[in-house]
């Protein structure tokens, strides 16, 4: 047993459902007790979904428990097949129902005989893997299922497209700014003259999965989800993949160069030419993206050597660490991730860019580290934002777990060249917010003027001497006005015209009495 107050990554079934409901016309059935189906609430509320979440809970109650759930689960699969005509039905238990140790595969086999849809059981160990690992696994399972099926039916067409093309794998619902990143990636690939073959799972149809091998290569923007699929496709179909996250100027360059390498293995034969993206990279870096210029600007110079702590999923935390250290000259005192399963890769990535590395999924440990280091800014998850609030340290949110704030209506990508601008803004605003607070403290706030000048309403016969004005400025802004009014009222009542510090205290006492 573990005493837990907060989780960075959710339970496994959430990952499975995120993948299943990202595909179009796929329905998921949860075999779960009442109340375990809160995924529907999360998706509907956070993503502000217009359509009903294609997830149905086949409810396990005391009654079902006593009689066995086979009948109910099979009935529900058949029912959803009829009602929604999905291409695929994915069955998943939750942590709770998985301990019933029922033969769910058998339920699936039974149901598949009498339905038109394909039916699969998400094959995940609910006590060993978290949301992200389960999502990765489920995506691979679905892709494998459809490619195997196509192969069995002899429909598999392995010839690649005439022009360079790519699959983007790993964009899905409830991801951290995934929709915006996807748009940015599409733009980037278009600029490089690469056609998008497929984007999965978000918005993809399972029946199109058999066309995945037609692409020249796979692009895996986030390590957490999609890598398993890419490795499978490489092994089975010899498809190369690029898994460098194009986040930050330096890594975008790396990513594009690797894309160039992948593409040129075929262009040589097919198009009888070689693509060279160096000019594009140079143009984008120096003139289109504002981030490189920001790095040179005076604004950024002031950030040099400032301390920051970075924490998040492996992809975002490592990219952010590199951006801060390499591109902005900020000192990353600690870089950390909650993706314990990917610790080795993470350590390798941030090695040399930070003073210490923290691998943990215990938020108190992260909080303690931040408190000890006392950085000028934090770049973390919603949890670190709250830690920062308590410690009075500004925090820019750079990673899931997601929050309604991470679903802005406007365009806010983290990847690609537009992403670099967004990140530069985020970094600058986070640090200056801290500096502003500091300046406010030194100079007693912006609103000193209001205190010094005569107020608009009353015929002001009261004068504040310099000490009392100073004293007033020490008072936090949000109660200052009130204290000023109370003091003046007290002064008037007692026929005092000159307000001194003594008068202020007397007024305070009179009010307390």
């Amino acid at each position, binding site marked *: *047993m*573990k005493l837990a107050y907060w989780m960075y990554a959710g339970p496994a079934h959430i990952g499975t459902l995120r993948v299943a409901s990202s595909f179009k016309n796929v329905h998921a059935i949860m075999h779960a*007790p009442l*109340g375990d189906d809160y995924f529907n609430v999360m998706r509907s509320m956070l993503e502000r979904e217009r359509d009903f979440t294609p997830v149905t809970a086949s409810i396990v109650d005391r009654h079902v428990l006593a009689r066995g759930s086979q009948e109910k689960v099979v009935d529900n699969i058949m029912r959803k097949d009829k*009602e929604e005509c999905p291409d695929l039905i994915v069955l998943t238990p939750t942590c709770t129902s998985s301990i*019933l140790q029922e033969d769910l595969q058998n339920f699936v086999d039974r149901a598949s005989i009498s339905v038109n849809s394909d039916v699969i059981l998400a094959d995940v160990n609910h006590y060993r893997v978290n949301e992200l690992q389960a999502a990765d696994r489920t995506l691979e399972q679905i892709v494998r299922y459809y490619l195997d099926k196509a192969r069995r039916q002899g429909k598999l067409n392995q010839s690649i497209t005439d022009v360079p093309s790519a699959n983007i794998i790993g964009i899905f619902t409830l991801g951290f700014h995934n929709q915006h990143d996807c748009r940015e990636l599409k733009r980037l690939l278009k600029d490089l003259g690469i056609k998008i073959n497929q984007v999965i799972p978000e918005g993809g149809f399972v029946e199109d999965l058999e066309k995945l091998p037609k692409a020249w290569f796979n692009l895996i923007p986030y390590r957490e989800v999609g890598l398993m699929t890419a490795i499978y496709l490489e092994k089975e179909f010899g498809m190369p993949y690029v898994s460098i996250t194009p986040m930050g100027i330096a890594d975008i360059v790396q990513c594009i160069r690797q894309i160039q390498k992948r593409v040129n293995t075929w262009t040589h034969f097919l198009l009888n030419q070689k693509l060279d993206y160096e000019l594009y990279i140079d143009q984008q870096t120096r003139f289109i993206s504002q981030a490189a210029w920001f790095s040179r600007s005076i604004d950024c110079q002031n950030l040099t050597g400032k301390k920051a702590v970075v924490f998040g999923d492996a992809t975002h935390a490592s990219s952010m660490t590199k951006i801060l250290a390499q591109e902005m000259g900020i000192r990353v005192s600690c870089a950390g991730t909650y993706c314990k399963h990917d610790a080795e890769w993470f350590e390798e990535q941030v090695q040399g860019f930070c003073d210490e590395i923290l691998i943990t999924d215990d938020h108190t440990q992260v909080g303690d580290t931040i408190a000890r280091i006392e950085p000028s800014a934090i770049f973390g998850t919603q949890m670190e934002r709250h830690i920062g609030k308590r410690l009075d340290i500004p925090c820019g949110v750079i990673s899931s777990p997601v929050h309604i704030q991470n679903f802005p209506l406007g365009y806010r990508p983290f990847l690609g060249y537009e992403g670099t601008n967004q990140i530069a803004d985020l970094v600058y605003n986070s640090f200056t917010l801290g500096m502003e607070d500091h300046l406010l403290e030194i100079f007693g706030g912006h609103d000193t003027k209001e205190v010094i000048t005569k107020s608009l309403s009353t015929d002001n016969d009261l004068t504040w001497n310099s000490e009392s004005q100073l004293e007033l400025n020490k008072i936090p802004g949000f109660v200052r006005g009130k204290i000023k009014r109370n003091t003046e009222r007290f002064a008037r009542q007692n026929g005092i015209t000159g307000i001194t510090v003594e008068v202020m205290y007397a007024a305070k006492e009179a009010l307390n009495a």
Partner: protein
Amino acid sequence: MSIQISETLTFECETGNYHTFCPISCVAWLYQKIEDSFFLVIGTKTCGYFLQNALGVMIFAEPRYAMAELEEGDISAQLNDYEELKRLCFQIKKDRNPSVIIWIGTCTTEIIKMDLEGMAPKLEVELGVPIVVARANGLDYAFTQGEDTVLAAMAHRCPERDLLIDENKVIQNQTIQNIFSLFSQKKKEETLKYLELKNHPPLVLFGSLPSTVASQLSLELKRQSIQVSGWLPTQRYTDLPSLGDGVYVCGVNPFLSRTATTLIRRRKCKLIGAPFPIGPDGTRAWIEKISSVFGIKTKGLEEREQQVWQSLKNYLNLVRGKSVFFMGDNLLEISLARFLIRCGMIVYEIGIPYMDKRYQAAELALLRNTCREMCTPMPRIVEKPDNYNQIQRMRELQPDLAITGMAHANPLEARGINTKWSVEFTFAQIHGFTNAKDVLELVTRPLRRNNSLEDLGWTNLIKKDNKIKVI
């Protein structure tokens, strides 16, 4: 599908696939209510992620609850449950020192048959902190019934009312007050008032309400010379009210049937079966019922109700003649529907996760009467509804408002159906005369909002995709 609206109340049980929150969500409001408590939810990652995400109860403010997260070793019984819980509880005692630890059992503890009730008394002795066990699991309960399980468990911990001591206390008080009366006349008056109020057997109210709302209800009863001797739960665990033979109890929430049964059977209390104090009509009926049980004639209650209705006038103009559909979520549905019918609305369907016809008998009778008096058709009551079927019914009925769980709100709005989250009624202050306004404020918000958007022509916001059947 044809939908008929009948002349009598019809009950049906659809036993469908419906969505409501898990009963462990009661932790969200109970930990705030009972200030010296600590809630330990014994369950899996799924339970923890729910509390953290769907309910948005965050651990940031270091509230007094935590998860005892069951790991693979616990599930496969490789670890000793007792030792594990002991370790966690000692840590909680050290870190937070609560007056009581409430163990919330979940579906998982049910399935692995963890004997929480057996372990608690033993650990309690070792720990020196009382441990209350509530099985708020989704196998047996829905959403707000979680509170029911906690209060039922707590009812066992209320001190036994000793008749002798009680009488002594009154006498003692009297002598003390006589001495004090030398000092102030005012105090003496208060004492007299107190003694006068004591002309009825003790009354304990059960149901968790914010303290301001609880005192409003106590005050309304005091106006009728009825003194509330205690509430279950109390602000502090150590102040739980005395229970026993001769104590009258009355519920303020419609989802507390188990607590009611426990109070009657185990604590020998007498239950006053009244409609629930939601809406001016319900509040009046509730006070009237309690008064009648004590043989007290109410004073000015009708005027009070009329006054409240007067103050609601502006809202009533908005809702009159409008129709509403309850998808069913928090078990407050019958009371809310009854109030809305009294406001002049038409209720097509009341979905409800669980319907205890005995505990809700007075409320159902009031619903029936209200429909007759307002000449509106009786709504159909659907227990354990099927959300998919409900949406089909809604498409046909096109209600002016759907009161629904959070998962369905956005999609229904996109299809031009006004919605209000049912969960808001769980957290808003809706009890008593003064808070009736808040209920209507919530109900009319979508109607008011949509009145202002009406001319824009944006009612339907979904694309028709030929490839996918859109429901």
